[in-house]
């Protein structure tokens, strides 16, 4: 049994993106809502609070909860902050595999594996580059597909 956790680099990247988005929105609020100071400060406050909550509280918690367990016969994905969700698929039910790699061969933790099975699909999010290769190798060994 192998356990894989989400790449923290992707968490930091998300945090930076959220902060950038909040900064841009606050800048836009400063530019366009300067006449209504109260509304402008309210908007900037809301954007900053949301960015703080999302970037520094929810994202780290989510990344801490995200894990993937691979056994010889099935793959299980666990996630969730308040509500924990566990999703399992059996290797033999996988119909096809989709591997998504981010820029720089997924160096920033932007590696995703989507397993398409009967009746739906299961996503493995924010894997390390090493883990993505290892899971692909395990799937290939189990005969799910031929990794090239």
């Amino acid at each position: 049994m192998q356990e894989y956790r989400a790449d923290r680099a992707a968490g930091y990247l998300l945090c930076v993106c959220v902060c950038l988005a909040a900064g841009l929105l606050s800048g836009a609020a400063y530019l366009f809502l300067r006449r209504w100071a109260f509304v402008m400060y309210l908007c900037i406050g809301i954007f900053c609070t949301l960015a703080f909550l999302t970037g520094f509280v929810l994202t780290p918690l989510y990344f801490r909860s995200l894990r993937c367990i691979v056994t010889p016969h099935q793959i299980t994905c666990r996630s969730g902050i308040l509500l924990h969700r566990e999703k399992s698929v059996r290797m033999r039910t996988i119909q096809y595999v989709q591997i998504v790699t981010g820029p720089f061969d997924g160096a920033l933790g932007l590696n995703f594996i989507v397993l398409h099975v009967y009746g739906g699909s299961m996503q493995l999010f924010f894997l390390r580059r090493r883990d993505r290769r290892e899971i692909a190798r395990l799937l290939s060994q189990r005969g799910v597909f031929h990794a090239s």
Partner: protein
Amino acid sequence: MHREHPLRIIRYSIKNIWLLVLPLVRLVYSYRVSPEALMAWLRGAWFDLLILLAILGFGWLNWFFREFTVEEGQLFIQDGILFTRRRYVPGRNLTALTIRQPPWLRPFRAAYLCADTAAGLLGATDIRLLIRLRDAEMFRRTLPHLRQGKRHNTHYKVDLWRILLFSVLFSSSFYGSVYMATFWFQGGRVARDLIQELRLTERLNTLSEEVAGHLAGIPPAAVTVGLVILSTWLLSFLANLLRYFGFFIESDKRLMYIHSGLFMRRRITLRTQKINFLDIRQNLLMKAFHLHTVAVNCPGYGTERGSIPVCLPILTGDEADYTVLPKMFPGTRMTDNTLRPPWTSWWPYVSLPVFAAAALMPAMQAAKQFFPAVDDIFAFLQIMLLIPIGWKFIIQNAAFRTSGVSITGGRICMRYCRFTTFHTILADTDCIVKVRIHRWFWQYWSGKCSLTFYLQAETMRRFTLWSLKYDEVCALLGEFLSTQTPIEPNEETPQG
């Protein structure tokens, strides 16, 4: 590695290609045969042209980075510029491979390829590529699971009169309206201009008045509605005729090839082992004349809008029982019902149309009282509504006589009626994923129940039989369940 057909670049850029129109219109408007005029045009349009080049360049990049190949019995597709997506589809999991060639792709020797597996939730196509025709053969050649065998080779070509009959029987105004709505919404401004240009509304009104003049007593509004329904039905009929024209099916032990279509040519390869169940459909007229239409449930087949996953369009009774159907699907046989609704279940079957008819008459009388100015429309509407209700009453009687189920030798044969279509479902009992017995509180006294079978399919498929005797259902299912081994998901033996 292969790339898609270069026409795909246009498809990738099509959302923004309309920007091309602006500089072109300007060129056409101010075109003079002189270098000065051309330079003047370039000075005015250089920025538009740069944007256009950027759009086309982005489309080219998308096309360039989208590659596919077939190796080691597996379809591999890679696409994406910044984010790379790699898809690995093992040939053994492919259920259907469709090659569609619309007329506008023929001069370019291009075709659409749709590859499907049993995965997914909404019946969407898994892989869709715009390929060169010469690459289409590569799929069949290099995927061992899509290569034809030698044993059990049967073929069946459908005559033109059968296609005509099938198109008549399975055309509906609903699907005609869907095609019309598609034209209306996707055509946008062009469609509206066309309708305005051809003065369709005025012509329809004139025609309605003329027809109403000949048919005394029928108001023009009712004639207009009738003409609209008739024209949408004709549209659906035409679409069916074009889709199933030249229908030809060939089958061996593992595969089924279907060719059809007059303008849009379709070549479909189905894996016989991946067919979940057969669905033999009949409407009341077909039932009266012992005609059958055989459809199959196979992921990836019949997913186009308004299409039926048809396999044998029109079969006579003998062909369905003895000649064509058993040859095409060996081991498949329509057996007599061992469990069917008792005679006391007649009323639950016919109650709905009876209540509908009983409610319609006072409602229409009341409407005539409240709106006396248009009472002729209500009188006409009453007759027009009573016809389908009466038709449904006859259908429900036939459904009562024919509904039922039998489970013999590991195969299930189930007959039921949904709306106006009679279905006979033939499947292996391994395909049953759930059985539900449902009883309303009053059914505890009458000793009856409803029985629903959920069958294995890409999207959830369930079939309900109404008002069966509870004891008989328990006896049948008890016997069936006691002889069953636990159901495992599909796992077939690898085929050379």
